[in-house]
């Protein structure tokens, strides 16, 4: 049965996890994701599932490692500085091919930074983050509804690829309250014959990421790369608004994309041909779609709450066919639709992007 309730983003992420059959949650308090920890502390125990408030983010991700090794659906969550601490464990999980959902409710940085919404962790999330040659599948919600839906999806994808999946939200998505449809998710459970369950009636299983001989490590890393290639082919997700006739295509994800939606309406009301392209999967990045848009649009304007990180991927995808510009605020400051509109006009939006 579906019903609509008012929820905070952090709570919706927790609910999405519970509905996806999350069996164990391990976390540590940090603003602005703490409500997620609190939500799980109540409901996981209520439902007879595993909840542990760990002694650190490092311990939490390693508890995930253990529970995932035992075959369970597991999740941890944190915010930027805490996600930095988890990188060791994330790298080990990618290497050992353990499914896990990791939520990053991003705040301003670097360092302790602040607790305002930001997007400065894009590189960390999409380019590996920890040491070694690996990727995470990264999903970026732009609403509370999407935060819940993508969290549930993340569990299925983690199992499907035996790989950690990151939900890259931000302080606004985590804190804002919006109405959400509580979906009835049917988890796509997969068999896990590799899991540690006690070697009864079978050969022993070993979960590890060490391959001391380079001759054995290379095929292992090549196997990982084949999974990432499969993700690039099958898991690209995005949304578009009015791109068909657009001279200027805004490119933004998460909270920045919501600002751009309003900017787009303002621009259209002034007769400017502006569209919006919103990557939902940040890895795999929608390279082909942006490459295609580069044939019809005159330029891209990337809007980010960082000094410009995703803009590099947009430039790679545009491959020099059209200019790629950036409008951004830093350090937890928010973009306004008016600021984006000014940028559109400065780029020649008034003249149909002829500049």
């Amino acid at each position, binding site marked *: 049965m579906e019903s609509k309730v008012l929820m905070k983003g952090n709570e919706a992420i927790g609910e999405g996890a519970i509905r996806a059959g999350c*069996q*164990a949650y*391990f976390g540590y308090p940090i603003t602005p994701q703490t409500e997620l920890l609190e939500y799980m502390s109540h409901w996981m125990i209520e439902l007879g599932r*595993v909840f*542990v408030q*760990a*002694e*650190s983010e*490092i*311990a*939490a991700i*390693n*508890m*995930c*490692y*253990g*529970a*995932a*090794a*035992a*075959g*369970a659906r*597991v999740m941890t969550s944190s915010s930027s500085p805490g996600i930095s601490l988890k990188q*060791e*464990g994330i790298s*080990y999980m990618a290497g*050992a091919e353990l499914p896990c959902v990791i939520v990053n409710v991003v705040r301003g940085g670097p360092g302790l930074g602040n607790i305002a919404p930001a997007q400065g962790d894009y590189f960390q999330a999409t380019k590996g983050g920890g040491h070694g040659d690996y990727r995470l599948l990264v999903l970026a919600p732009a609403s509370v509804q999407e935060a819940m839906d993508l969290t549930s999806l993340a569990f299925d994808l983690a199992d499907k690829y035996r790989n950690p999946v990151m939900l890259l939200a931000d302080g606004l998505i985590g804190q804002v309250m919006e109405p959400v449809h509580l979906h009835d998710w049917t988890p796509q459970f997969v068999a896990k014959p590799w899991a*540690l*369950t*006690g*070697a*009864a*009636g079978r050969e*022993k*299983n*070993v*979960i*590890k*990421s*060490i391959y001391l001989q380079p001759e054995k490590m290379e095929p292992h890393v090549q196997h990982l790369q084949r999974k990432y290639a499969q993700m690039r082919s099958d898991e690209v997700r995005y949304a578009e608004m009015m791109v068909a006739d657009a001279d200027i295509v805004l490119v933004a994800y998460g909270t920045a994309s919501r600002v751009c939606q309003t900017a787009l309406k303002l621009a259209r009301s002034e007769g400017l041909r502006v569209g919006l392209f919103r990557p939902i999967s940040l890895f795999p990045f929608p390279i082909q779609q942006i490459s295609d848009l580069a044939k019809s649009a005159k330029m891209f304007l990337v809007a980010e709450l960082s000094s410009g990180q995703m803009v590099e991927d947009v430039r790679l995808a545009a491959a020099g066919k059209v200019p790629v510009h950036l409008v951004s605020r830093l350090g937890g400051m928010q973009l306004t639709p008016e600021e984006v509109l000014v940028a559109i006009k400065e780029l020649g939006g008034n003249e149909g992007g002829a500049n």
Partner: protein
Amino acid sequence: MKVERTEIESRQSWREEIVYQRPKALSTTRTHYCPGCTHGIIHRLIAEVIDELGIMEQTIGVFPVGCAVFGYDYFNFDASEAAHGRAPAVATGIKRIYPDKMVFTYQGDGDLAAIGTTEIVHAAARGENITTIFVNNAIYGMTGGQMAPTTLPGQRTTSTWQGRDVAIAGHPVKVSEMLATQDGAVYIARTAVNSPANVNRAKGAIKKAFKVQQAKLGFALVEVLSACPVGWGLAPKEALVWITEHMIPSYPLGEFKATDEVKAIVG
């Protein structure tokens, strides 16, 4: 050759009872341990205990970063690698999913008493129902003999060339004494494998620690003073004497904690 074999077979014919053989839980993989290293003895004790308790198919081991990093190759049960020092957190994750499986960590002194101090203290404080075998050889063996948190004052290592100066490098960490103060820890014992008698006592402590977990009493840890002849620059026999003369006076053997429940159930 043929004659010799016949002689051996004829002698075996009256000796029907097998008194010593490889435990089932121990694999046939040749270990990478240095000559005189006592990791092999400790591995064997664990395997014997697992055989005797009949729990090989219910056991999940968690192995460290350090000399025992390939520990999972040497046993015949499910096992996981853990990042350096994180074995108690990994074991917590496994145990919470499978409360009825036998979950243990095998950790050295660098892994447990330096980089992993947080994880072991909090696993003990939570009363996590896991067993930890803590191998203390007072040195970083895998990386070639640097100072460990358990290195003795005055002990020479490759990072304390003049001997550990406590004014510069601080004091040894007394793990068993420290963890015995935690309410969640129900059984804490320090043993050594420097003599046949002590090897037997170590096995008894390991067995007790596994039984504590079977009875779901809480956190149990057995510290084992272990020889590292190569790291110490001693012959294997001298290394065993060094345990007696130097380690045991600093790290006294015995039970540091055994709650009434532990005493009652294990006996």
